[in-house]
């Protein structure tokens, strides 16, 4: 089988004159969101602004209900904001786009397709590929997540961790520039999760994709992110930011990481208390 490079060379977008050293891939400008449910109006997000550089791994951390998943949905184009806008490569996001694929907390795999069929789903929507190329890319990505032996397995036959790996292959295969991940490992057991932390770091450093990763687990955020952005609830807003400069690959169980996570968690607690 012919091996394709994981990331085909693509023309880089023209560098924007910005204060950051890296061109911003995603720009969130003044996003505000209300949920109106019957009598109660919930102020989900309040004037959120955020810049995410090209190839950056950013973790959004906050307690449940702080609006982090809503923010991710808005970045994906799945939910509309009441005010503000999201720019991807300088273009306003108005609908979901193939350049920003989402991995959800549940695998959201299609049960009527095999693992292979699921990975093919997004590829079949790319008109620029021939069928042969699609099949090769799908195999490539199943192998990347270590599941090429299970290509023709039915979804219900896979374990929780294997399902999330297939979901990962499915979002990686169409080669998006941005991955939006909404607590993708939250429902998995600790051992499987540790393995996936390794996988996702390896894949990220090999592919140079931009990743926005939402989690409530500070340690997970510190393990994965270049930058950890804290969010506080009622209404959802951005608090402190931490640059994480630990060397990669990082082990979630290392003492240095645990210490940094403890500091970050303390800051998160402070911010949570202040917003109350």
């Amino acid at each position, binding site marked *: 089988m012919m091996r394709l490079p994981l990331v085909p060379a693509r023309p880089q977008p023209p560098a924007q004159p910005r204060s950051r050293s890296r061109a911003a891939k995603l720009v969130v400008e003044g996003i505000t969101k209300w949920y109106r449910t019957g009598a109660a109006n919930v102020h989900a997000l309040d004037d959120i602004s955020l810049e995410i550089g090209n190839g950056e791994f950013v973790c959004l951390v906050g307690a449940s209900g702080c609006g982090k998943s809503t923010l991710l949905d808005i970045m994906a184009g799945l939910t509309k904001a009441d005010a503000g806008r999201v720019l991807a490569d300088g273009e306003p996001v108005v609908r979901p786009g193939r350049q920003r694929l989402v991995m959800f907390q*549940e695998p959201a795999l299609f*049960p009527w397709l095999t693992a292979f069929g699921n990975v093919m789903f997004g590829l079949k929507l790319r008109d620029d590929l021939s069928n042969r190329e699609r099949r090769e890319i799908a195999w490539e990505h199943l192998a990347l997540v270590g599941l090429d032996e299970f290509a023709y397995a039915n*979804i219900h036959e896979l374990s929780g961790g294997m399902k999330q790996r297939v979901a990962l292959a499915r979002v990686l295969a169409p080669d998006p520039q941005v991955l939006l991940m909404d607590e993708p490992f939250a429902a998995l057991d600790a051992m499987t999760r540790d393995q996936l932390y390794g996988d996702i770091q390896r894949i990220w450093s090999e592919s140079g994709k931009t990743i926005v990763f939402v989690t409530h687990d500070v340690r997970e955020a510190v393990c994965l992110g270049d930058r950890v952005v804290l969010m506080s609830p009622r209404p959802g807003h951005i608090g402190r930011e931490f640059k994480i400069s630990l060397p990669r690959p990082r082990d979630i169980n290392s003492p240095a990481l645990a210490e940094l996570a403890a500091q970050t968690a303390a800051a998160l607690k402070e911010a949570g208390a202040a917003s109350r």
Partner: protein
Amino acid sequence: MKRATHIVLFFGTIILIWWLAVASGRWSPVILPSPASVADYLWSSTLDGSLLDATVVTVRRLLVGYLIGVAIGLPVGLIASRSQLIEDTVGSLALGFQTLPSVCWVPLALIWFGQTETAMLFVVIMGTVWSVIIATDHGARSIPPIFSRAARTMGSEGFHQWTRVILPASLPFLVSGMKQGWAFAWRSLMAAEIYVTILTGFGLGHLLHYGRELNAMEQVIGVMLVIVVIGLAADRVLFSPWERFLHRRWGTNLQQS
């Protein structure tokens, strides 16, 4: 093998009891024909072709009416699941008509279409279409929204999303809806055939009806057996393969006999 033995034993016992009841001589053969005379009727009517002809007429009506009913019911049900307007209008109409026993359509069909094939088809379609609409509608509504969300992020929209996501996701419900539609179609056709004489074709329902008129109980019971066998065969041929596929893929392990 053990299960097959049980089945053979069970039905063998029923036939034995039947035969003993006849042999006791308490009932006249006009009321209770012997198993042998029923078998004899089935054999001779197969040889002279009358049973086969009636079966062909009935099955053709059933298939044509059913297919039309499904062809209307599936898309309408899918649309109703996504559109509040269609749900409130066509959906509530379907809910109302579904409760109407389909034999109640027969008088109307006779006045509108006369004693014709069209009247038969009309009754079958009315028996099928509403239950297919309801089942499809409910099925498509219970698809987890996460499937559509995931598909949308990958660029699936409009027609593609309908055919590649919503339709396959609702397949389990579609199959049970179609199965239910089949049962309704079969019942309504039999009711119509027993109720109405159609000059253009002599179906199983008519054979049953004339069996009674001629006091030929072996014919009545023989035709009933044929009707049961057709129902079972349809289940095996039309639905079982789908259900097996669904159970394998979805992992719903309802043990099918």
